[in-house]
């Protein structure tokens, strides 16, 4: 449990190197034309799905609050970014939009969280579902959002650099939050809310914090989405979108960031591959989900993170070395 307090530890440098090499690998593959536009769309989808699913995992997996309304927060970020890019079609407009959108999603998260987070389990799920529908209907009826037709021809400011940077930042922020004492408080709510309250954890406050924090990054993901895919309409952010995210989280493992990332990549790739077989696509997709849930009901990773696995091996190596000497 002894986490070193300095920033430049061996572990952090290794992670930095891994992150940078992934970035440059994709960057060079793009510039040499090995990865085409078609591939880049898949990569964008993966990045956005990772952001959405990791932020949803903070709410559902770590804090244990069942939410079916994540698409609502995403749509707030998406519309804010689209509108900002409308009046200022450049990178600065994009950054302003995505910031406003994320903060707005956070504020809405707090406002909605205060009354609904008193509910538990299925009831909370239904309340959050209703909330996302309200947000969708508001966008459907506002003039500025152009109703059901949606906003088209948004300037594409989001590229691989922005996609990757924001995804890494979101994952890093949520990972650090989860491993802090605040994160521990959130996990204790999932484990046993009554006991956690008896320990002096302000459970209401922490549920709202987790909810708002998750909403913030969902808003950012929505911003990336609207700027990358030119086009948004209220229908895109319906109930099914929230379910999609929940599927990624459950498949990866409730309470594992590593698992969420792996399953976001797998499911995004699966969707892309199956696009050519459109008639059987949903069947294959569903069958794979059923099989995984039957054989690994705790999700791909359970609550295990890749860092735990590495730590375990490192410790084993050390012990082996000790016994030899």
């Amino acid at each position, binding site marked *: *449990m002894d986490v070193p307090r300095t920033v430049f530890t061996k572990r952090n440098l290794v992670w930095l190197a891994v992150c940078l090499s992934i970035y440059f690998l994709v960057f060079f593959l793009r510039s040499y034309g090995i990865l085409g536009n078609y591939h880049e769309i898949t990569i964008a989808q993966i990045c956005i799905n990772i952001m959405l699913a990791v932020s949803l995992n903070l709410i559902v997996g770590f804090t244990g609050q069942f939410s079916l309304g994540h698409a609502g927060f995403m749509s707030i970020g998406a519309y804010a970014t689209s509108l900002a890019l409308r009046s200022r079609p450049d990178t600065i407009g994009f950054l302003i939009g995505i910031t406003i959108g994320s903060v707005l999603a956070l504020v809405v998260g707090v406002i909605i969280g205060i009354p609904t987070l008193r509910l538990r389990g299925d009831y909370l799920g239904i309340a959050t579902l209703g909330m996302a529908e309200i947000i969708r209907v508001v966008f459907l009826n506002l003039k500025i959002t152009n109703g059901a037709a949606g906003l088209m021809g948004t300037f594409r400011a989001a590229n691989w650099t922005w996609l990757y940077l924001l995804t890494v930042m979101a994952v890093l922020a949520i990972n650090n939050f989860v491993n802090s*004492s605040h994160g*521990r*408080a959130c*996990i*204790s709510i*999932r*484990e*046993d809310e*009554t*006991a*956690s*309250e*008896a*320990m*002096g*954890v*302000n459970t209401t406050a922490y549920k709202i914090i987790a909810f708002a924090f998750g909403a913030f990054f969902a808003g950012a993901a929505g911003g990336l989405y609207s700027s990358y895919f030119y086009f948004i309409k209220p229908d895109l952010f319906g109930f099914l979108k929230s379910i999609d995210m929940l599927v990624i989280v459950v498949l990866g493992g409730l309470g594992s960031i590593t698992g969420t990332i792996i399953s976001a990549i797998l499911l995004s790739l699966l969707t892309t591959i199956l696009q050519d077989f459109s008639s059987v696509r949903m069947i294959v997709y569903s069958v794979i989900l059923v099989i995984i849930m039957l054989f690994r009901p705790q999700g791909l990773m359970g*609550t295990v993170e890749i860092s735990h696995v590495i730590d375990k091996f490192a410790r084993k190596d050390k012990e082996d070395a000790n016994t030899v000497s």
Partner: protein
Amino acid sequence: MLVIEQMDVHYGIIQAIKGISITVNYGEVVSLIGANGAGKTTILRTISGLAKQSGGSITFEGDDITKMAASKRVEAGISHAPEGRRVFPGMSVYENLELGAYLSKDKAKTKKSIEMVFGKFPRLAQREKQMAGTLSGGEQQMLAIGRALMLDPKILLLDEPSMGLAPLLVKEIFNTIKEINSSGTTILLVEQNASQALALADRAYVLETGKIVLSGKGEELLKSDEVRKAYLGG
């Protein structure tokens, strides 16, 4: 130190507690005994702020805490080991204890407290890294008590520490409670196991359907005919 006056608690339209007054003095062990559904657990939950009262007041060390949030009451020195143990099953024993000191910012002190708990319950030290959900019932109870002691509380509320434990373990747990009390922590104990609870208690209250029907010194109640008939089996 803890004075409850005319406390009412409602669950929906059902009144679970009907105008109860209880006093706990510094250094005492006070037991609440009574049949199932008498309202024992509800009283503890209301004292720690997990349940809301509809009437009356609670005073702790001279301050009115009737409207205080649960987390603030922990800070004030009221610690609650809830009914049914309620450890965090997916966390290790060590992490459970760390969460017991969640409100403390002093890491060194937390470590010391954990060592203190391990000293009291050596069994927990052996299982330090094990998930709390995989512990036996007795070990979970030890962990729940240990966790409640992490912040060095002024008063410890114990809810049925003997529930579901083998007689030998019950004895052990009660000995530990005695030790905790003799090192200066005041204890309010709720128990089904009336004979053990009365033997340990300085004073006790007997509850029946939300009302106090009898109160007095532990040993006196142990000898009283009414209590013997109702709870001790003749």
